[in-house]
């Protein structure tokens, strides 16, 4: 199985159910499809439904809510934090089809994949220090070979040759060993680190000694104790999370106040500069260009002509509720009837009109039944189709 950064694509998917966070998936019902190309790749479906998750390798990705395609290395790299996901997405290495918001949401649904903690001590590491740990004063007159048959993952075979007060290490087992230690790699590391008692290990058969037991008993003297390398602990950088929610109230003032009163009565009011004659909607206290008081209110619209449509695909928070806005939606700038040519009125377009409405089309406001003097007294503008 191809590995990238020591992790295979299978590792990511096989641990996904265990990494599922119910609290991060509240209300999510979706099928996430993954098409991972390259060595070790494949196709997977991750179904999140009713606070549970099912991960399956498959050939058929149909029926997904969102599909993520990437090569195996990029996929693994992003999942373990070795590759920047945004960067990979922007440069086209990750492609997303369907409901993109789900990809961001999936970060909350699963805890990040982390590499299984490997012991810093390896069998190889122990043997790398064996010669240095040799105590010649305790091996005077010895002319023997000691064999080590360390089995399982990370194991190997070594022979320590002791002669003339010197120690040489060879890989492989010599035939003429005075004693051979046979033990699993994990148990051997535990023995060396003192986590496993040698008597217990022998008694339970996890450590087998073949040959001269007396030599075996001397080994702790012939070799000094193995000192594991000091692990440098990385400082965990604490991030404090805050969610600020504050009740606010804003004075509208007499000019905007009058405008909002107008909305309650289904009227759109503009004010007119007494000097240059331009109209402002919503009205502002002064004409900023002439720097004079612009008090006169005149009813305009309520219908008008679109001068610009902005179709929004990026879902941003609604500052009134904090809820993420549903996309796509459209903002429109409207030249209201009777306003002159200086000023457009900014509001939203009815979603049903989004597909076929363009600049120059005529629109009218759809009034809310519950008008209180706010931007929401107009629900949106709709296209006049007659």
């Amino acid at each position, binding site marked *: 199985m191809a590995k990238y950064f020591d992790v295979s694509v299978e590792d990511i998917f096989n641990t996904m159910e265990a990494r599922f966070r119910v609290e991060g998936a509240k209300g999510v019902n979706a099928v996430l499809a993954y098409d991972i190309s390259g060595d070790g790749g494949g196709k997977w479906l991750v179904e999140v439904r009713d606070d549970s998750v099912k991960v399956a390798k498959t050939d058929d990705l149909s029926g997904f809510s969102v599909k993520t395609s990437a090569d195996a290395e990029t996929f693994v790299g992003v999942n373990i934090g070795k590759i920047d996901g945004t960067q990979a997405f*922007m440069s086209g290495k990750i*492609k997303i089809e369907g409901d993109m918001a789900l990809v961001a949401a999936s970060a909350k649904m699963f805890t990040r994949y982390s590499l299984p903690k490997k012991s810093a001590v390896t069998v190889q590491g122990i043997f790398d220090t064996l010669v240095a740990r040799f105590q010649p004063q305790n091996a005077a007159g010895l002319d023997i070979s000691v064999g080590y048959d360390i089995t399982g993952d990370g194991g190997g075979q070594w022979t320590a040759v002791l002669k003339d007060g010197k120690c040489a290490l060879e890989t492989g087992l010599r035939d003429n060993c005075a004693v051979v230690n046979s033990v699993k790699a994990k148990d051997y590391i535990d023995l060396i680190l003192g986590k496993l008692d040698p008597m217990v290990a022998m008694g339970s058969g996890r450590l087998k000694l073949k040959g001269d037991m007396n030599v075996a008993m001397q080994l702790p003297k012939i070799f000094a104790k193995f000192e594991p390398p000091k692990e440098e602990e990385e400082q965990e950088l604490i991030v404090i999370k805050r969610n600020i929610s504050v009740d606010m109230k*804003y004075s509208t003032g007499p000019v905007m106040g009058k405008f909002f009163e107008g909305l309650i009565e289904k009227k759109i009011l503009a004010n007119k500069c007494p000097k240059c004659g331009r109209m*402002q909607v919503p009205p*502002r206290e002064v004409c900023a260009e002439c720097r004079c008081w612009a008090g006169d209110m005149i009813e305009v619209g309520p219908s008008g002509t679109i001068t610009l449509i902005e*179709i929004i695909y*990026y879902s*941003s928070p609604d*500052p009134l509720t904090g809820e993420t806005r549903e996309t796509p939606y459209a903002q429109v700038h409207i030249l209201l009837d009777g306003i002159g040519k200086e000023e*457009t009125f900014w509001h939203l377009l009815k979603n049903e009109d989004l597909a076929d409405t363009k600049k120059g089309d005529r629109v009218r406001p759809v009034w809310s039944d519950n008008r209180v003097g706010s931007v929401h007294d107009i629900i949106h503008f709709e296209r006049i189709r007659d």
Partner: protein
Amino acid sequence: MKKHKKNRNVAIVGIGQTHHSSHREDVNQPEMIHEAVELALKDAGIGIEDVDALVHGNMELFEMVHQPDLWHVIGTGGYGKACYRVTTGGTTGATIVGVGDNIVASGLHDIVMIIGFEKQQEGHTTGGITNMADPLWARNLQTGALTGATAEKTINEFGADRAKRAAMRLRVTLDKHASLNPHAHRNFGLDYDQIDDLMVNSPQLVGELRLIHMCSQSDGAVAIILACEEKAKKISKKPVWIRDHVTVHREETFNMFGINENQEVTHHNAARKLFGRNGITNPREYFDVFEMYDPSSWWGLDWLREFLQLEGDEHLKMVENDEVSINGSFPLNPSGGVISTNPIGATAALRVAEAALQVRGDAGAHQIPREVKHALASGFGGTFWTVLFMLEKDLDWQEAE
């Protein structure tokens, strides 16, 4: 045109910028600022005791820390010094350099350090920008700084294919520039053969404004040290002179979308004033490099026309003919620009800093390959503000007047 005479000359004598990234969780705010301050002091070869005053700026709505300059004194070294706190939206970085320029020119302080910073990952950028709009009306409608209006205007004027191609060509060019700048937050390794793919496949944000067109959200800080002429000549072998700067601001921009296309925008107005009062008749010829505040490729493309007072499709041709590339006749944003690196409160100050590095010849791998004597740098923000700077290598323009 009324001449703009400074009380005394002001030069940039020290520049420091941090490593910029989407996540500077390795440091807190004062620690990040301290990085930039230390680098600027080292660059100037002076100590914090030589600095008379600080000007500190960012956008409070991003991190939701009010008066961050108080907390940041640990990092700024501002204890016991005069400190000015300025926040003018995206323009902040340019406004703080402008404030520094003014208070040194006035004679009030001899050496002033300006500090701009942002840690955007600590808050919500689009949410923060949306809250800049007036709470009575526009806030309910705005989507941060995202708009497709300029894309639509450019497409209507020059046709969809040419307009989209030019905007994406500019995007790729600036990505190539960013790849030369070790401080740049993002570069994607884009190439011109990807233009067709990106024009169609980069996700849409608003209309034809696509994800790849839009600037990044970065964490980072910049510090710039300004000095009066007398001190600058003592401190620095390569002082970069701030010849002039101008600020232009207007309201009601939301109410003019889609109409009055002939109305002068603030960039055009600012450039017209600045060039007029300094006798610059052909800015394209006069300036050797332009560090523009380009929040999106569509704006970058359109604003070339506004700043350089161009007519017709000259600005498109500049991009199509690669005149704006680092080896071209009018290099634009050799640093990679805002599109690659955007710690907002620092962003506009970075434009001035990068332009000054070009004048000094110290920009490194993204130094343009010929002498830079005259540089232009712009800031943009809020509901259409412009701040525009002219930097000079030699202190010789007074004689020309």
